[in-house]
Structure formats: structure tokens, C-alpha cells
């Protein structure tokens, strides 16, 4: 048994020792502190909950800035209750959008006010229209963006704060922007955030950094809305399983007592 264990360990160590030497082309992003624990980093904060204020500010950034180009098709206005909005506020937010519905009894499409059950209104009617309006490539849907990118929330922050002038000798093609965090460094999106670009209701100073962190928190929630329920249930399940394992170990000892 011990020999076998050391054998397996030796195998793992051999591979692990070799691993760091590989040439890595993947980008590393500075790690931020997240009260929810990063969605894409395992075991980062097992008690983590979302910062409600940051979520609301982040939603404001999405609503006032990002949503001009980026859809969030998987979310509905009713989901916003998780951000701390009450039913009246959600109804008001939804009613701020005109939704195309139908066909009615005459076979015509018609426009009505949004309701909480509606999905977030997309800026473009379809992907082709989005691509046509944005130089040939549709801006990605943001519903799952935090889980769909290596680096998750930290990538979003790095990207939002990564716009700068290209280093000497680096030619940025027309229609592109230099961003140090984007793979390949040329991104079609112009810098979306600016200091004071939004005005937060809670008085938080709207620096680019602040907006980036808030919108990343919001997008993390959008990608993983059940994170809090998961953390809470996980704690109970882990405690239960550890207790059960303890009892079974005692039972095992009792059964085997006369055999050792």
C-alpha cells in the first residue's frame, strides 16, 4: 500500500516538475479580490456572496454603456430581484423598453411595454444586424461572458482598463484599438468606459477602475446567478458528508476490531 502510494506520487511529481517549464502563450490577468469569490477560480471563497451595491452599479454600467452594443439574451428583467430591486422597480425598469410582440389576431407584429418576464432587450434584432452595424463582427452576448473567458472577472477588469496607446512599432489596423489585455492586442471595441461616464446613485466615484470592477461583478452574477445558493448548500452538504464519514469510520473500526 505504501509502496503503491509512493509510486503514484512519484508519477505525479515527475509530471508536475516538468509542467512549469512549458512556454506559455496564455495571458495572465492581475487577480482582484471578489466578495463572491471568483466564479472561474475554484475554491476561492466558499462563503462568498455578491456585493449587492456593486451589482446594482454594475447593472447601471451595463444598462447605460454596454447595452448599446451587447445583448444579454439569457437574462430576464425578473432576474433583477437578485440584485436587490423590488417588484415595482423591476416593473419600471422593464416598462422602460419597447418590446416587439405578436402576431396579433390581425397577423401584425405590435409593440408593447416590457414586463418583468421579458428577456433583456437586445440592441440589434439579430446577429447579422449586429455584425453589420459593428464592422462585420457581432459584439458577443454578455450573459455568460465571465464563464466563457479564461480569467473570468479578472479578464473583464483587465480588458476594461487595458486600453492604451500602442507601443512604438506596433501598428494597429484601422477600425481597431490597442488593448494590452486582449489576446492579439487589437480589439474592435473602442474604450467603452470613461471617468465619470456614469453617475452612480449611491455616490460612489465612477472611475474607470470602479466601473470595470462593478460591471465585472454584475457579469459574474449574470453568468452564475446561483452562486450564493450553491455556496450555502455546499456548506451543509460538506458538513453532512464529513459527519457521515466519521460515523462510518467508527462503524468500520467497530466491525473490524476483532480482525486487526
Amino acid at each position: 500500500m505504501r509502496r503503491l502510494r509512493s509510486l503514484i506520487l512519484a508519477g505525479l511529481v515527475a509530471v508536475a516538475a516538468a509542467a512549469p517549464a512549458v512556454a506559455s502563450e496564455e495571458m495572465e490577468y492581475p487577480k482582484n479580490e471578489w466578495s463572491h469569490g471568483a466564479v472561474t477560480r475554484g475554491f476561492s471563497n466558499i462563503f462568498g456572496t455578491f456585493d449587492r451595491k456593486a451589482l446594482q452599479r454594475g447593472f447601471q454600467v451595463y444598462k447605460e454603456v454596454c447595452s448599446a452594443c451587447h445583448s444579454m439574451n439569457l437574462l430576464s428583467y425578473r432576474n433583477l430581484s437578485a440584485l436587490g430591486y423590488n417588484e415595482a422597480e423591476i416593473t419600471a425598469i422593464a416598462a422602460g423598453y419597447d418590446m416587439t410582440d405578436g402576431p396579433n389576431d390581425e397577423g401584425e407584429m405590435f409593440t408593447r411595454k416590457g414586463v418583468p418576464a421579458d428577456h433583456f432587450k437586445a440592441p440589434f434584432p439579430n446577429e447579422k444586424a449586429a455584425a453589420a452595424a459593428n464592422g462585420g463582427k457581432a459584439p458577443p452576448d454578455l450573459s455568460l461572458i465571465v464563464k466563457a473567458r479564461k480569467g473570468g472577472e479578472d479578464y473583464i477588469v483587465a480588458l476594461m482598463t487595458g486600453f492604451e496607446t500602442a507601443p512604438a512599432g506596433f501598428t494597429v489596423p484601422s477600425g481597431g484599438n490597442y488593448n494590452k489585455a486582449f489576446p492579439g492586442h487589437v480589439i474592435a471595441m473602442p474604450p467603452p468606459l470613461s471617468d465619470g461616464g456614469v453617475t452612480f446613485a449611491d455616490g460612489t466615484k465612477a472611475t474607470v477602475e470602479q466601473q470595470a470592477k462593478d460591471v465585472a461583478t454584475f457579469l459574474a452574477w449574470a453568468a452564475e446567478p446561483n452562486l450564493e445558493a450553491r455556496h450555502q448548500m455546499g456548506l451543509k452538504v460538506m458538513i453532512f458528508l464529513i459527519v457521515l464519514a466519521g460515523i462510518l469510520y467508527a462503524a468500520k473500526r467497530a466491525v473490524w476490531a476483532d480482525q486487526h
Partner: protein
Amino acid sequence: MADTTQTAGHGPGSGSHSGGDPSRRDFIYLAAAATGVVGAAVTVWPFIDSLNPAADTLALASTDVDLAPVQVGQSITVTWRGKPVFIRHRTPEEIKSATDVNVSELRDPQKDADRAKKPEWLVVVGICTHLGCIPLGQKNSDPRGEYGGWFCPCHGSVYDTSGRIRKGPAPRNLEVPGYAFKTDTSIRIG
């Protein structure tokens, strides 16, 4: 895991145990089995509950209906939770025939006033209480049965202008869904 409970009963090994005090040992087996059973039972719940209506289904559980375009004597059918709801703008005669009934003679005694929040509007779920067919009577050309309400073609149940069962096999009146008047001419069902 549950078989640990049987330990005390049979199994050739169990009788000859010398380790520890027997009552303490039995307690451990019992604790293990009980904890395991509780864990298994609790684990079942998420799987069962996942079959209940999901959040998006519940979000669509109420329907708003604009009554303004419905003329006197006309009926409309709207969809609510995937079921047809009959809304009839009743004529004075229909209201009269619905209220002039000796309630105690009915199979499912119910006063018309308990079934219609405003006498001119009758809102009922359009599903026959017998076996779930959709009764006829929404169009003026439909057969409505001898009580002027609805007639179910499946097994001949006849409903009156208040949606109450009058003849045929159905046991109960057409169900009145929960609804409320938001304005004089619009209702929210559900």
C-alpha cells in the same frame, strides 16, 4: 449503505465481535444507518422539485386581458397557463337566466354572484370538469345546449350562462380562475 442495519441480525461475522462494548457498537451502526437514510432522503428532494414549474414558467403565470373590444353578447378565448379561458360579455337576458335559478337544485350549487365579479363579465376556465375536453359555445354559431351556456361535445355535458353544470356527466361547474379587475375594462388572470 442501509444494509449496515442488518448487522445485528445475521452475518456470520457479527456474532463473534470482541471489539468494544456491544451497546456502543449497536449505537454506531444505528447512527450510521440513520444518517445515511436521512442523507438519501434529503438528496431526493432536489430531483423531485426540479420537476415542479421552473422560474420562467411561473413568471408567465398571470395574463392581462383588455376587455374593451369585446361587445355585448360576444365571447373571447384567451390562453392562461396553457389553458383556454372563456370570457363572455353577457347580455341582460343571459345574466337574468343565470341569476333566476334555484341554486339548491343544482348539482354543484353556487350563486351566479359568487362566480362573476361583475355581472356582465363571466370568466371561466374553458375545460369541461368531466374529462378535460373544451366545450363549444364561444361562437354564436356553436351549439350551446339548452341552457344557453356551453355544450361539451365529448360526453354531452351542458353548462348554463354562469358556466354551471346542468346536465350530463360532469361533476362540477366550470372553474373560475383567480382574476382581478385592474380597470373597468381590463383584468389580470392569475
